[in-house]
């Protein structure tokens, strides 16, 4: 009898070891696929030019250099562009939260006429490609006029609002920025999970709806709020479409990268840049690739830093709630 249980235990241990091995192999394999381009990016960004032509150098640079990064930083005016990008992403995130939170709260807690239809509109805003309403809106705002009133007052000229920040604030403050429909949805789901009793107690004590929202609902939703803000920040930071359409005169990192790319693929007349670039063999695609990698590392580094610090918010919140459940 004891021999039998002993054998059973051995079998279990063997099966367990098998599972662990299989799991490790699969996870390491998939991780390798994800990390491969990241590792390659880091390896190339710090590789000196001569290593590219050296066939014995594959991943680890033989001549470590910061020149690529320096050139990329100068050409992109890194400090300024980074500041613009971060400010844009941060400000958009902050502005979008209030309308999204308020809408999410109304849908979660109030049973009002038309709530079904309006919630369908939220879902619709998630499903409509941004281009579909952004393009006509842009065109309309570039020739802004209200029934001919503005033309009459402005010597027959319509206002070009796209040169101002008005469209940007309009979209952010009304909850129509990047993926805001999804945020409203997430807030609604999270508010629905908060027990009604606390609210009712506050109501009995005489708190008005706004006070309940501000002093009870918001403090209980800090985690989801931080998560949504982080997502919003990351998506805005990576986005090129909204920023190029809404902030025409501000050079964010993606636009700076485009300038950098045109500077290294063809001289654009900037002398200070060409002096630094003259050490590079710019006809060679492999050298270009070094420079591009350095530039993109510069762009992604702040994001990676944010992720490293705040990863538990990203991962745990989805893991707990299923994003929408």
């Amino acid at each position, binding site marked *: 009898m004891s021999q039998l249980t002993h054998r059973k235990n051995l079998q279990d241990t063997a099966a367990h070891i098998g599972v662990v091995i299989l*799991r490790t192999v*699969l*996870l390491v394999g998939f*991780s390798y696929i994800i*990390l491969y*381009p*990241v590792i*390659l990016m880091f390896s190339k960004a710090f590789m000196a030019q001569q290593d590219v032509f050296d066939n014995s150098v594959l991943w680890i640079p033989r001549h470590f250099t910061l020149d690529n990064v320096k050139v990329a930083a100068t050409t992109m005016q890194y400090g300024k562009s980074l500041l613009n990008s971060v400010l844009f992403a941060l400000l958009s995130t902050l502005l979008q939260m209030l*309308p*999204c939170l*308020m*809408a999410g*709260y*109304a849908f979660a807690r*109030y*049973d*009002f006429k038309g709530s079904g239809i*309006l919630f369908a509109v939220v879902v619709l805003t998630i*499903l*409509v490609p941004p*281009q*579909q*309403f952004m*393009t*006509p*809106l842009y*065109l*309309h705002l570039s*020739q802004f*006029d209200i029934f001919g009133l503005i033309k009459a007052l402005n010597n027959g000229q*319509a206002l070009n609002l796209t040169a101002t920040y008005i469209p940007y604030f*309009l*979209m952010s403050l*009304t*909850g*129509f920025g990047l993926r805001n429909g999804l945020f*409203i949805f997430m807030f609604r789901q999270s508010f629905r999970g908060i027990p009604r009793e606390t609210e009712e107690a506050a109501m009995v004590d005489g708190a008005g*709806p706004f006070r309940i*929202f501000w002093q009870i609902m918001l403090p209980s939703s800090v985690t989801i709020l931080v998560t949504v803000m982080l997502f919003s920040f*990351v998506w805005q930071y*990576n*986005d*090129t*479409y909204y920023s190029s359409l809404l902030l025409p005169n501000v050079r964010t990192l993606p636009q700076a*990268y485009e300038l950098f790319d045109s500077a290294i693929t063809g001289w654009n007349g900037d002398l200070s840049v060409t002096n630094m670039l003259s050490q590079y063999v710019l006809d060679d*695609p*492999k050298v*270009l*690739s070094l420079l591009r990698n350095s530039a993109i590392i510069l762009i*992604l580094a702040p*994001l*990676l830093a944010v*992720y490293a610090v705040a*990863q538990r918010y*990203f991962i745990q919140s989805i893991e*707990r709630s*299923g*994003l*929408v*459940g």
Partner: protein
Amino acid sequence: MKRKGLSLQKKRSAWAYMFLSPWLFGVLFVFAFPMFLSLSFAFSNVTVDNGYSLQFVGLQNFHEALFVDQNFLQHFATTIGNMLYNVPIILVYSFLVAVLLKENFAGVTVFKFIFFLPVILSSDLFFSLLNNFGSTSASSLDSVMAGAGSSGMLQSLNLSEYLVELGLSREMVNIITSPVDKVYEIVTCSGIQIFIFLAGINSVPPTLYEAATVEGANGWEKFWKITFPMVMPMILVNVVYSIVDTFMSESNLVMEYVYELSFKNFNFGLSSAICWIYFAVISVILAIVFAVISKRTFYYT
């Protein structure tokens, strides 16, 4: 006795609309009005000069999009084909990884960190970098990331040659090897989905497993009889999320083409018509998927 003010029901409605007011303003002016403009563009010839003027042309733009324009249908078919092909693979892959990550073993946080990384790096610039590895150079190192995929990384090229030599037809070989070539694309698209599945798996009440163990079920049975049905609702969420994510991405072919038509060719009529066709087809696809999956979904309440 006269009633004071509004009834509670009406008061609550008023408060609801107060909370919604910024968003409602947006619905009217940032969403509904531009959508109406887009619809009128789709049926008109739009000329832009110090203001834009519309000339009603009926269905001409739609006709052009569907029968004259050479790019749209091709891009559209590619996008839908990719979606149909990728979504099932994304589902299987993310479910597999979620099952692997569900246990609390040493280093699980590191793996979670890595598997979520693609969501953070979902930048067009980063993807352009991957494309540049291949397109600008033919050297062995640089072609490793050829295209958006990674044919060089897993050397499926050799595999497909081998399979052809074995006597399989080219089409069959392509079907077999293309998931391998697309592996990078799949892995990068699955960041969120993995964790949605993980949420589903973690929310299964442990009592179910305990009861099954008492009844003598083994791991395999527990997986198919408990875990899988309990995670079904998350499958629906993930399918919808994956489809929307593919279609809304500004870097997909149709969206890029629309951008080009609007802001390079200034053909706003055609681009609006394309947007409406696109939107209609996405809605139909989502409605079908939703109906099919939710009918088969088991809800544990």
